[in-house]
């Protein structure tokens, strides 16, 4: 029933003409001899980008080089290169939350300006086909700066075999998650398990982002004016990092850590996913980009033995699944912006996006979410689609201080989790430091 409603909804908002095949020979320019360089995160979708890029090469004559970097390293490289007016890379894959910083640093050429000047056929861009909670991440200063292509949403991943053996339903609330984690930790019936649950707890970005991902479903909000449906999330940025809801959530994490694998204090995205892939934990919350990996028999021990559910929530609160992902931008300093834009509009178009998803990447458009073949190959798509429609686009701050702010928060959260400070002390300190940062840059008075 839900699928039918979602399908009807998507067909209503999605223009059918965008499904029609584009004549790329006419649409794209001749870039023979040019080596187009794409700078990307080393996320699992990178192989799919490499797999489909030869199609672009065949039409345009350009060669495409895709280079991957780690999360922090990519951010560092991109900003430093931008400060040096470096045009080595033509296309920059940027985390949606970095958009404010990249616009402030004048690193990207707004795609809206490019397509207005070029008179690009809007059915190729098909902006309305993007899921709004993700598409909003590419907009800054009321302008579409980049093209969204790799939308991620968080889902709860759980081991169906273990849950069935224990007669458990997939957890819905924080209490359910805690009870299940307790049950599976050190359970002699499941000697392969090292923990009931795994979360991102490593100092810095990992723990900081984890806080933002959970706080809404914990019934809180990070700052005054940021809540799902807020008309202006940045109107009042006075921090609520030490609110009773925030502190209660950290205390819940402190309890949860007892039922996690040893060393979880150093877990970030890869470690969390690996623990689940290797069958070491019964549950994780995870970005959808890594979900296909769990079904890959070459690396996964849980193929066909896991299910997905909506992001859990605290009693009395609602599930607000985290949204994130990557947007493709034209490097302001690129030596060949025409080729970069051609690549972007080709790569992010509904037609190529579908092929990319079928090559193992995460669906980010309504059309892809409702594609029968994608649904067959990625059977978690209906839950993912529901998550995407419930998500709140301003989950994490997107202004120029975002990286620093998340890192600052991540240090304090990690301190609370490793017992260096209490939940209240850690969040009081985080609130104080973040307020000082925001004041220093004029975001609050």
């Amino acid at each position, binding site marked *: 029933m839900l699928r039918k409603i979602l399908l009807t909804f998507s067909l209503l908002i999605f223009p059918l003409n965008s499904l029609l095949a584009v004549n790329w020979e006419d649409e794209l320019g001749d870039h023979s001899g040019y080596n187009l360089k794409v700078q990307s995160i080393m996320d699992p979708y990178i192989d799919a980008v490499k797999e489909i890029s030869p199609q672009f090469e065949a039409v345009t004559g350009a060669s495409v080089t895709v280079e991957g970097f780690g999360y*922090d390293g990519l951010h560092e490289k991109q900003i430093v290169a931008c400060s040096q007016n470096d045009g080595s890379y033509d296309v920059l894959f940027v985390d949606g939350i970095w958009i404010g910083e990249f616009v402030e640093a004048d690193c990207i050429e707004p795609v809206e300006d490019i397509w207005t000047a070029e008179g690009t056929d809007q059915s190729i861009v098909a902006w309305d086909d993007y899921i709004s909670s993700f598409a909003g991440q590419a907009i800054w200063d009321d302008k579409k700066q980049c093209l969204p292509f790799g939308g991620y949403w968080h889902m709860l991943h759980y081991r169906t075999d273990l849950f069935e053996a224990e007669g458990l339903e997939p957890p819905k609330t924080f209490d359910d998650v805690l009870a299940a984690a307790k049950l599976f930790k050190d359970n002699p019936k499941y000697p392969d398990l090292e923990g009931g649950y795994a979360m991102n707890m490593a100092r810095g970005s990992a723990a900081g982002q984890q806080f933002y991902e959970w706080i809404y479903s914990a019934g809180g909000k990070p700052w005054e004016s940021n809540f799902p449906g807020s008309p202006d999330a940045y109107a009042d940025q006075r921090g609520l990092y030490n609110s009773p809801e925030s502190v209660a959530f950290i205390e819940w994490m402190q309890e949860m850590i007892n039922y996690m694998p040893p060393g979880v204090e*150093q877990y970030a995205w890869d470690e969390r996913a690996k623990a689940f892939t290797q069958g070491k934990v019964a549950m994780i919350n995870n970005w959808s980009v890594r979900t296909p990996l769990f079904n890959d028999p070459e690396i996964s021990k849980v193929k066909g033995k896991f299910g997905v559910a909506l992001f859990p929530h605290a009693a009395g609160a609602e599930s607000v699944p985290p949204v994130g992902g990557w947007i493709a931008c034209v490097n302001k300093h690129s030596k060949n912006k025409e080729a970069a834009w051609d690549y972007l509009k080709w790569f992010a178009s509904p037609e190529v996006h579908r092929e990319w998803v079928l090559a193992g990447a995460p669906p980010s458009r309504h059309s892809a979410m409702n594609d029968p073949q994608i649904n067959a190959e990625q059977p978690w798509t209906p839950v993912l689609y529901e998550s995407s429609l419930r998500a709140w686009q301003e989950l994490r701050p997107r202004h120029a201080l975002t990286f*620093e702010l998340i890192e600052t928060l991540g240090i304090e959260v990690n301190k609370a989790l*490793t017992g260096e400070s209490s939940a209240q002390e850690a969040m009081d300190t985080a609130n104080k430091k973040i307020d000082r940062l925001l004041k220093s840059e004029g975001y609050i008075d």
Partner: protein
Amino acid sequence: MQSEKIQKILFILPTCLFLLVISIFPFLYSVYLSLFQAKLTKMHKKFFIGWENYQVLLFEDDTFPTAIKNTFMIAFSSITIEIILGFIMAKIFFEIRHIKFSNALRTVTIMPIMLTPLCVGLVFLYILNPTLGIFSYILDTVFGIEPFAYLGEPIPAKISIIVINSWQWTPFMMILLLAGLMTVPNEQYEAAKIDGANWFHVMTKIEIPSILSFVLLGVVLRLIECIRLFDIIYITTKGGPGIATEVMAFFTYRTEFRSFQIGTGSASAVIILIISLIVTTIAVTLLRRVERNEGLN
């Protein structure tokens, strides 16, 4: 006479210019930037804030003072371990210096120094991994000790960093002290033997006083190295958990290249430089005093 003076100036001018461009200008520019609220992403909008960056770093935020404290705690602990173990190893190699293969053995022993700290960090990251690491595996299978996150808890993480740092640099201290032991005249050992001195007397009355200048030289060099400690922290703990292993150099990197706060980062770099200068000056003065005393004796 006048032309000779000009000639001399012309001779030293290239060196002065080189120093000015390579050392003095970057330092002065760092000092200048440290007085501004400056972010790499909007350098054109930087504005003067005076000493505020220094004030925030030293008095308002606990992270940088903790980083200073951690740096010296790690330096003091590592160097102490290195001196003790380095001396024991130097003594062993000194005693077996006439044995065949002792040179080859010595070469193998100093291999950790040849590794880049980055590789050392990676190796220990794997060794100490609670799930896959050999250390946890041995403790678990031999002693039945549960796997433990050595780099994930504040005190074990600090100890791990000290152990890793000492493991890499003990051979350096060993080489230095061995060189010192080689300089002790044979007659002194023979005289001690005739006087009936035991090993403890030989060590405290002959060897240690003789190698004191070598020890101090090692301390100075290692202190400078420890103040710049970065790679091992970057690979293993990234300053965590919390700020338990945050050190000055890593803090500066984080501020400059993760947050791109050039003003604050420059202020911390200037503070590090001042601390290094003070520490090095004290250590070199001590070294000179010891050398003078040795000369008098």
